[in-house]
């Protein structure tokens, strides 16, 4: 039997970046092939960038153009499978969230990423009419980040309990705070973390 250990040495500072600056942009190379020509012809300057990093192609679009691009890719280019919808939080940027759609085409055996930047409070259009897969995926984004999707048939929390406040995967939700809040509220004592 031993007593509880003494306070350990504090861990080295976890953040390598100075706080308040978004991460440096990635070293992407431009991406040109016949698909980009078709997309450029159809959408013009709604698509801001066609790039490729480590052999994986992605494009950055304006936030209103995302659903039309998805519809076009599904109907014309054969991207019939929505692999994933996810978001990344960059709190230092004005447009806080990066919404990422990953599509795959069985015929071409090719994956493509569509990224867009949205500010907090913006409600992007839901992809459920285009791909039914997006149903639970968008619910999870709402649960974890707080991004509401307009036109989603069932916009509510999926992983966290229904009465949870806050959105866990945002960078300003601290795990310790969430733990202390829950313990105080439900158990009435102080959490020992």
């Amino acid at each position, binding site marked *: *039997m031993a*007593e509880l*250990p*003494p306070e350990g*040495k504090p861990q080295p500072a976890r953040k390598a970046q100075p706080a308040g600056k978004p991460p440096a942009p990635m070293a992407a190379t431009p991406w040109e092939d016949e698909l980009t020509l078709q997309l450029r012809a159809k959408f013009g300057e709604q698509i801001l960038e066609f790039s490729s990093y480590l052999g994986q192609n992605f494009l950055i679009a304006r936030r209103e153009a995302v659903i039309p691009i998805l519809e076009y890719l599904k109907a014309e280019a054969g991207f019939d499978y929505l692999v994933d919808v996810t978001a990344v939080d960059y709190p230092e940027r004005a447009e806080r969230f990066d919404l990422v759609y990953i599509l795959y085409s069985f015929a071409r055996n090719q994956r493509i990423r569509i990224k867009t930047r949205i500010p907090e409070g913006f409600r992007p259009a839901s992809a459920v009419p285009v791909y039914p897969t997006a149903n639970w995926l968008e619910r999870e984004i709402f649960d974890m980040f707080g991004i509401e999707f307009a036109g989603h048939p069932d916009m509510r929390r999926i992983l966290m309990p229904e009465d949870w406040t806050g959105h866990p995967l945002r960078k300003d939700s601290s795990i310790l705070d969430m733990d202390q809040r829950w313990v105080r509220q439900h158990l009435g004592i102080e959490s020992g973390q």
Partner: protein
Amino acid sequence: MRKFLRKVFLIDLIQGLWVTFRYQQPKFIYTEQYPAQRPKIAERFRGAPRLNVNPETGETLCIACNLCALACPENLIVVGSERDEKTRRKILTTFTYDISRCMFCGLCEDACPVDALELTQDFELASYSREGAVWDRQMLEEGPRPTKYAY
């Protein structure tokens, strides 16, 4: 006709039952009578930690480099050391390991440069209290103490 006979005489079900009846021989018994029969544990099994001691001199092998504490994903190792003025080396004073949060991933064992921290084959780690799951240096150096059952 054959299909009709197969159906009426339950041939497909009897085939399955025959497989089960084949296993009624005692030599196919796979159950291990624990705790009378302890299982054979592999050498690399990641079980309870142990701080190794030099068998001749009785001194600890740990050089208090703190690499295991830095490698641990759960930050549950606390290495206390003091500097010996004569040899300018660090001497281990306290070493605490919290079994209750350990996930036995083996990163600490991989990180140790002198093979002082080792995960043994002991898996019987229950204790009666939460504090009993925090092991100090003495418990870690003693090593596993499996209970012997008298049968």
